[in-house]
């Protein structure tokens, strides 16, 4: 619980996450997938997992923003992980009109709630430093900037995403929070 608190309150959370891993303790990650790739999010940053519905698109918004949705009375900004990673939208919603994202992860940053729209959500994994690898340098820069490390799993790899970097894009003209 102490570690979780440290992560949640530490200002540069990327640093905090790294610290947590380095001490050798295991960390819990919520796994999500986009296409074939498996991603992990630090569990203490995940507030909700839900099916997004009734998304109101925001005209003129940055491409990453899918729209706004009502999550139990709160207005939540929905962001597409695909678009954030520079991937094309899933094939069945390529025309953009009948976009029906499957799952969303509720994340919080600076008192604001965001919904990260992903293709699907997997299990929660407990991972230690033994399977941890640095981010391969040949990765696409978009991935490299958002990932903190990679875990070797049986048969596949898990890219751990830095939640703050993920939410950290600031559109031109927007005030830093």
């Amino acid at each position, binding site marked *: 619980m102490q570690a979780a608190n440290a992560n949640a309150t530490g200002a540069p959370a990327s640093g905090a996450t790294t610290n947590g891993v380095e001490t050798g303790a295991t960390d819990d990650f919520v796994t999500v997938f986009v296409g074939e790739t498996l991603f992990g999010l630090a569990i203490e940053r995940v507030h909700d997992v839900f099916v997004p519905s*009734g998304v*109101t*698109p*925001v*005209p*003129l*918004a*940055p491409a990453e*923003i899918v*729209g*706004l*949705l*009502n999550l*139990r*009375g*709160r*207005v939540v*900004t929905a*962001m597409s992980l695909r678009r954030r990673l520079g991937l094309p939208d899933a094939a069945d919603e390529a025309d953009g009109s009948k976009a029906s994202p499957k799952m969303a992860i509720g994340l919080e940053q*600076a008192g*604001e709630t*965001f919904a990260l729209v992903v293709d699907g959500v997997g299990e929660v994994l407990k991972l230690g430093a033994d399977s941890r690898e640095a981010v391969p340098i040949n990765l696409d820069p978009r991935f490299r900037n958002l990932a903190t490390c990679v875990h070797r799993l049986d048969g596949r790899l898990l890219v751990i995403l830095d939640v703050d970097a993920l939410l950290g*894009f*600031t*559109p*031109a*003209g*927007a*005030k*830093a*929070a």
Partner: protein
Amino acid sequence: MDDLLREFLTESGEHLDTVDAELVRFEQDPNNETILRNIFRLVHTIKGTCGFLGLPRLEALAHAAETLMGRFRDGLPATSASVTLILLTLDRLKEILADLEATGTEPAGSDDDLISALERMAEGSAEASAPPPPPPPPEPVLPEPVARELKPGEVSLDDLEAAFLAAPGPDESDFAAPAPVAAAAPVAAPKASAPKAEPAPVEVAEAEPARAEKAEGGGAEGETTAAAKNNQTIRVSVDTLEHLMTMVSELVLTRNQLLEIARRHEDSSYKVPLQRLSHVTAELQDGVMKTRMQPIGNAWQKLPRVVRDLSAELGKQIDLVMVGAETELDRQVLEVIKDPLTHMVRNSADHGLESTAERVAAGKPARGTIRLAAYHEGGTITIEIADDGKGLNLAAIRQKAVQRGLASQADVDRMTDAQVAKFIFDAGFSTAAAVTSVSGRGVGMDVVKTNIETIGGLIDIATTAGRGTTFTIKIPLTLAIVAALIVRAGEHRFALPQVAVLELVRVDAGAQRVERINGAPVLRLRERLLPIVSLTGLLGQTPAGSDTEQAGFVVVAQVGRERFGILVDEVFHTEEIVVKPMSVKLRHIPMFAGNTILGDGAVVLIVDPNGVARQVAQGVQGSGGHADADDDAANEVADSKTTLLVFKGGQGSFKAVPLSLVTRLEEIECAKVEWLGGRALIQYRGRLMPLVPADPGIAIKSEGTQALVVFSDGERAMGLVVDEIVDIVEERLDIEIAADRSDLIGSAVLRGRATDIINIAHFLPLAYDDWARGLKRPEQLSTILLVDDSAFFRDMLTPVLKAAGYHVVTAASAEAALDMLQSDPAIEVVVTDLEMPGRSGFDLVAAMRRGEARLAALPVIGLTGAIGADAVERARTLAIADLVAKFDRAGLISALAEIGAETVSKAA
């Protein structure tokens, strides 16, 4: 004991407890500025309140403690001895408070021991010479940092002062008596005349039982809680309200789902209770919403008192003017800005306004004025705090900024005054030469800025040396509740704040239809053209010009002086919405003021009328010439470019006329054209208007509709018959005067097309034989010399001036003008272009002013493309009577009329 004092005791008790805990934290973490600032503010608040209540012992102690803490902030190491000393001071404060609570008066006694120790410590002598009882043991588990000043209930002064003002009895004459109100009341009763006698005893009666109760209560701690229990109202944290609000929203959603289910099942036994649930939910929602709204006047209530006290304390005469106290604000916003406002008013009184003597010396009224104004403006609430004092001392601020290492000398020299002024928002920045107990510690302005920015607001300063300083706070509508029109554009719904909406107009392909000028949609609305933007187009959803614009609704909106129509597909209803702020990721989009959740649970975006207005102005600038467009913008445009109306007239050729000469564009039914004596006329606005073809090749159609360009002057109007109105273009006019036809001035290339520029002077006499002879005002037959290098302008203005009843002679250059002035003594007014090649209009006027008496005294009107500040200045030194924009016919005529009136009055 009255409410005021009770509140003060409760508050101060809480504050002191916080300071205790925070001080201990600070001792362990001496570099943590947040804690220090928090402590500093709390002590400052206590001190300020004591000042109002007239509690000199408490005030003196708090002031001394604050001084020492100010030294900490400036870098004095916080030794444990000094912290102990402050804690001791706090204990003493608590003792006095306990006494105050028990007896209702500040106990007699001296705090010189502590105060002198504090002062010595502040002076830097490190050795703790203070009486050294052991410091309270530091708490092993530290509480979370307290951010109380942002919470609602914590702002004691407001409620306190509200109570103070509401309480009957003591008026300013009692201010001299420093005793609390309970004690002052009996004194007040005999002092005040008969009508006052009634309220005073009531107060005493209230006070007595309360005091008795206290006496039984015993210990100081117990009494504080007892006092708190006596309050009629309770303090609820905004968090609780916020939570309630969220829950109510949830309830609404659940109800809606239930209603949906009930609709599908035909079981009517559900319906009645559901209906009830529905009503109750709606009322609950209303109730919760209401708890959040308060007029801004609530935050101002204490200010008159503050200003009055300050004016006594500082020996200045100060008037406080408050405008717009009824402006409603979300209480959360209100709470956040309350303290900043008080700080700023105090600052204005202390630093902004000069002393009475200085004011008189500077030739200002002896009484200084502080003006507070609040109003809704588009999507924001604006609050202004203005004083008419000496203005900010920018030189001192520059110096201080360098001293404090905030910027280098070079940086400071480069900065604009506005940038320099912003330094006052830095923590601990005060240029006041002497620290007074009122202000000058630099506490405040940084807090002000922080608080305002917390709620997404902006603060700006405008200062003029010798004239005063104005602070403008703009708070976005976030959190506030507004009435909004729910509309549909494309596939989605949007909310439009109702404040900006004037009316709704239904448009279709029939009578009320949206017309286009060069693709820019406009609507005729009561004989005026209204620029239209389509919401879908604005939001980039559909390409502009699609068929969807044929039918729908135009929401007529007004922002500032700009009127425009927003085309939407459907209008649903109005709804009171809670404005939720946009995500930081989306705040840069100017089109949206926020978002909201509607009754059915859907999130909709709130369109910001200000943002739309800016887009409209950019999109339809060309047609702004005769609308209420922003004058500045129009002038900038006129600088080098001319806006022209392009139409087709005669064998498909393109013709153009300056848009500023055009009154209206019309389309008439050909059947309505009447012929009288071989001339075509039409009944237009109850009068007969002659129609003149723009080209001999144009025949007035006999059926269908006929496009007209209407020119009017006073009560006369003429319809120029054209084939088709094509476009409005804004281009640099480069006329090649080649045509030897009197109906054309020449030709120019507009948008890559050769276009004839028509000469209105040719057509006006065709419509009215006497138009050019100016029979209207025969008594005013003064002669005007019109000087302009461009034949186009001479030809354009001559008929206008003639029509207004003047004789007009023209000159093409300054030299020619001087010659004519010498030879023609009848010239009474000179109208000259100021920008001419060779000798400019200014040179001409300068030459005239140097010349013989008649010329030197001749009134001059300057025509200019851009009215800049320096042009105005030059014009003033040359005694040019008026500056008129080149295409502003009406302005020129009225300027001439003014000169005529002056001449007449001088002659009389």
